[in-house]
């Protein structure tokens, strides 16, 4: 465990986001308690934990979507140009019905441009969307309707969207649920590559401990508070994780928790 207090953290020049004593409560239900966490640039941090451990809530607190106690600081002093923190977010899933008339381009245009989507898109927006999609090998999906995409295609599209503009902090909330195994591998290779290329800080929530352990620099075991923090192999070997998930073998795809659920999809 290395929940250092901010004062101890002298090597923190590249520390992008710092959570201090963060807590979230919904009514009497204390979902997160006493979260101290430094998220570093260029580091892929995987968060594992049982269902209802507060993983998604942690993201929603960082996004400012739910009220929280404690403090979240964003340090961008290392940035070349001063700017507000840019967060890229890839949701677990998008809720839409099969007839939803939303195209991939619509999603990009709404996020990137001030021009109302229903008046059409400018050439610049279309070019920006296409080059973002090309990054994740999905350029041909520009005009596709969301309802026609496979799980893997949709997650790559959402990743491309989260990376435009290049964020300081990338939040991935179970980004590969509903993606077939080859799609999962492609997705993680892209994420690892992006981290190196853009020096991103990445937080990744996943149920599939074994697979993320191969790609992550650091792993957190979260269950309302951070119970284990360190290198993936150490966290997966800690007593509390073994008690929750059983022994997880890296690198081959032994699974934990609900990963069997993902295999069939």
């Amino acid at each position: 465990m290395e929940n250092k207090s901010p004062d101890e953290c002298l090597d923190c020049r590249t520390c992008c986001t710092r959570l201090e004593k963060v807590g979230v409560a919904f009514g009497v239900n204390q979902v997160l308690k006493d979260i101290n966490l430094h998220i570093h640039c260029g580091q892929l941090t995987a968060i594992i934990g049982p269902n209802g451990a507060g993983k998604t809530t942690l993201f929603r607190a960082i996004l400012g979507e739910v009220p929280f106690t404690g403090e979240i600081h964003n340090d961008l002093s290392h940035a070349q140009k001063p700017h507000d923190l840019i967060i890229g977010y890839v949701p677990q899933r998008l809720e839409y019905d099969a007839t939803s008339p939303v195209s991939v381009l619509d999603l990009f245009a709404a996020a990137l441009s001030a021009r109302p989507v229903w008046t059409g898109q400018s050439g610049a927006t279309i070019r920006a969307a296409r080059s973002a999609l090309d990054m994740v090998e999905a350029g041909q999906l520009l005009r596709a309707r969301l309802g026609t995409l496979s799980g893997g295609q949709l997650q790559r599209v959402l990743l491309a969207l989260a990376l435009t503009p290049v964020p300081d902090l990338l939040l991935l909330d179970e980004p590969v649920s509903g993606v077939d195994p080859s799609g999962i591998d492609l997705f993680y290779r892209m994420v690892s590559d992006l981290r190196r290329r853009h020096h991103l800080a990445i937080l990744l929530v996943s149920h599939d401990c074994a697979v993320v352990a191969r790609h992550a620099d650091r792993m957190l075991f979260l269950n309302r508070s951070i119970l284990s923090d360190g290198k993936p192999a150490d966290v997966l070997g800690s007593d509390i994780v073994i008690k929750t998930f059983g022994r997880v073998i890296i690198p081959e795809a032994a699974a934990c928790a609900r990963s069997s659920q993902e295999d069939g999809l």
Partner: protein
Amino acid sequence: MTHITSFIGILPFEWAHYAFMQNALLAVLIVTPLFAFLGCMVVNNQMAFFSDAIGHAGLTGIALGALLGMAETPLWSMLVFAVLMAVGITVLRRYSAASSDTVIGIVMSFTVACGVVILSRGGGFNKYSRYLIGDLLSITRGEILSLILVAALFLVFWLSSFNRIFLVSTNTSLARSRRVNIWFTQGLFACITALVVTMSIQWVGILVINALIILPAAAARNLARSMAAYLWMAAGMSVIAGVSGLITSYYWSSATGATIVIFGMVFYVGSLVAGRVRGR
């Protein structure tokens, strides 16, 4: 406006010679694309039941106006009440553990009950039953001007806020990561919906106003493959259904709002079949 109505008067149809039909046609041309645009995002946000509840709240607004001794059509009390209800439901949806259709169902039934109790006291409800079916043919020039004003306001909102509403309807966390203020956007959209619905109630009627909003959007969803196509198809179908319904209601002597809904339904069924045939 006189130029427009006199232009309508040139048309070689019997109905086109009457001033009330000229006014009604103008009103239909303003209101139907507005309803269609609004309906597209109401459907996208899964708020169809919400807009229905706002329509029903009109009755309570009228009742409150009557209590306060306001004019025959107490637009202000209706507007204030509808906006309060829109904000109320938005807040309840956020803080209540009950599902949002349960919350809306409770609020709607209760407000309608309050309205009916107040208006029916002493057996005088019949006086207000015209609000249930509406009377588009009674619209005056001045009222058309106020509709134009609402349409202009709506257009400004629709140009400036559409992308944010769209992002919030797609995924709230994703919208938040794009710095969209979720609660403000949802609240504002609810208020604008309340404004448009309430302004139109006396002409199209509480019973069918929601169908006029939802049907064109639902029909366009069966065919559209992008947001732009979705909104413009809905607007086109809404205008055609509106004009067809108005003219038909003239010959049938039926309530205009309800007759337009029949045509809207024809579009919906037609688009459903066309969408299936195209195979998507």
